[in-house]
């Protein structure tokens, strides 16, 4: 099964984010890189707190771009997707942001507070720049709109598994599975559907795979592995935590 980790850039430090990327790469189809924002309304406690830690470290958009450039120059080839709130992109300049993504080697963009249709201009700019904008579908998205979102799919379509915000949960509700089944049937087999929000273990991932998902996105559960530690600097200090992150990634990858 395709595994997609979400990492909050700059938490606990940009150099640690690089270590996490390298550790996740062998098991991942894509890596989502979150650019921290002060007011992340789609995120639960874990990613909120990671974002604040990162911002307190002084992380900014230029530094995240710099980290991507370093990873690319160090031979990391896996596709990257930025997860950025709309104001981060808007304040940077939409055209400038997209161009820099292209130049630095980031293939996709998720804006959790920009529903499809709200900013036609960024769609046009992204398309011209060869950047994929990933659409989200929620359990309450009406069929007509879901059809439109799938038709305009990016590298994959992000299925929001449940009502609410991001954050690790241990179970899977029947409603979530039913939603994924419904979307699979609706989209047909040619479309890539990844499920996110609340996934923290291989058991859940297996059930989503059974419902027709091509992959799962895991964020908060990875962050919770290391967030108790405040270590900065070398990856040596977080060796046990990185091992646990790898083992979670491997267990889902092997499904």
């Amino acid at each position, binding site marked *: 099964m395709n595994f997609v980790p979400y990492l909050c850039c700059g938490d606990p430090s940009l150099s640690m984010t690089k270590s996490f990327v390298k550790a996740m790469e062998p098991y991942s189809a894509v890596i989502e890189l979150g650019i921290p*924002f*002060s*007011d*992340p*309304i*789609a995120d*639960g*406690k874990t990613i*909120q*707190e990671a974002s*604040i830690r990162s*911002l307190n470290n002084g992380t*900014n*958009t*230029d530094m995240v771009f710099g980290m991507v450039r370093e990873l690319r120059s160090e031979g990391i080839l896996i596709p990257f997707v930025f997860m950025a709130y*709309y*104001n*981060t992109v*808007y*304040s*940077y300049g939409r055209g400038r942001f997209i161009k820099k993504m292209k130049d630095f080697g980031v293939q996709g963009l998720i804006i*959790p*507070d*920009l*529903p*499809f249709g*709200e900013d036609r201009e960024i769609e046009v700019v992204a398309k011209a720049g060869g950047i994929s904008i990933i*659409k*989200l*579908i*929620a*359990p*309450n*998205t*009406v069929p007509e*709109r879901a059809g439109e979102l799938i038709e305009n799919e990016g590298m994959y379509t992000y299925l*929001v598994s449940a*009502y*609410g*915000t991001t954050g690790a949960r241990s179970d899977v509700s029947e409603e979530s599975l039913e939603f994924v089944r419904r979307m699979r049937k609706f989209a047909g087999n040619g479309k890539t559907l990844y499920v996110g929000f609340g996934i923290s273990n291989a058991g859940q991932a297996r059930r989503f795979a059974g419902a027709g998902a091509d992959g799962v996105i895991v964020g908060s559960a990875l962050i919770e592995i290391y967030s108790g530690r405040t270590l900065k600097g070398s990856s040596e200090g977080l060796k046990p935590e990185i091992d646990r992150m790898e083992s979670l990634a491997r267990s889902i990858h092997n499904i």
Partner: protein
Amino acid sequence: MIEKRFGEFGGAYIPELLVPVLKELETCFEKAVKSSEFQAKLDSYLSRYAGRPTPLYLAENLSRRLGNIKVYLKREDLLHTGAHKINNTIGQALLAKFMGKKRVIAETGAGQHGVATAAAAALLGLECEIYMGSKDAERQKLNVYRMNLLGAKVIKVSSGSKTLKDAINDALRDYTTNCNDTHYVLGSALGPHPYPGIVRHFQSVIGLEARKQVIEQEGRLPDYLVACVGGGSNAIGLFSHFMDDKDVKMVGVEAGGEGISTGRHAARISGDGKKGVLHGSLTYVLQDPFGQIRETHSVSAGLDYPAIGPEHAYLSTTRRVEYVHVSDSDALGGFHLLSTTEGIIPALESAHAIAYLPVLSGKCKKGDVAILNLSGRGDKDVEYVGRIEGLI
């Protein structure tokens, strides 16, 4: 039909989960305002419960002190729960019932909107939870207790700056989670579409009455309208019925805090805000060069917010409304000025508008008429100001 955008401002920058929810809200709102039954209930509660119409009072002592200008006060401070907020919360609580929702949530800064929501929820038998920054809850303990008395649960928010903006973040998260049975009673003319239009609609009763009253009492339209602007609901409520009266000049007063150059203020338009998106709406926002939302400051909690309602952003670009700012210390001056001249203690928010009057009067011809929206009473601020001034 309520407009989705004001020029380029406004819009609905929200998670996909809220797209169908806000669509339903818009549809129900449009149905409700066309329903004579809904309107009759609203009118009845506004007059018999909240205390409408509020007087338009000619403040003669204050006018004499100012010199040129003749000031009328629109007495929203006399409303139940002490401010204009109740106009909107009764409207939205009725809307929640109309939509079949069982529970309402709201954000609050100083507590005024929280108290007004809790009162409306108690009145209409709705479950009510209020999000309040933990810093604000500490500063306004009495209002926390007041909300509890009214049967509401207060949820203290300890993320981010622990103030109003963080309370809105958590209220939006709750709304995303519980939208099937919950209505979010947003307290100002901000947030994603359709909120700015809904809140303006429920607050426009202020302008509707004021226009009629000033014509009755003065025999003509005023030369100026003055109102303080946090999110901007009391201002837009007053302004809305004078938009097409080209000779009526309008002034919105923002919180200048300790001065624009100190960075400790909440002046989005008249200070150093830039275009951006916060809480679902494109508007002027106080932010750093990378789009992170800045912490704001004002002596008045109700004006202490980093974004401004999108219609105000638009009205500033068309120059229909002039936006200015007043410092903390001048606002405290306004607080005393109205108290001593008229025997009315204004809310610190409204005191910002009062404090602009001497400046405005200096630019006026003798006999120019102004309506100032006295959006709230100062009872809630008495202890705070007393402490600042070292008197209690």
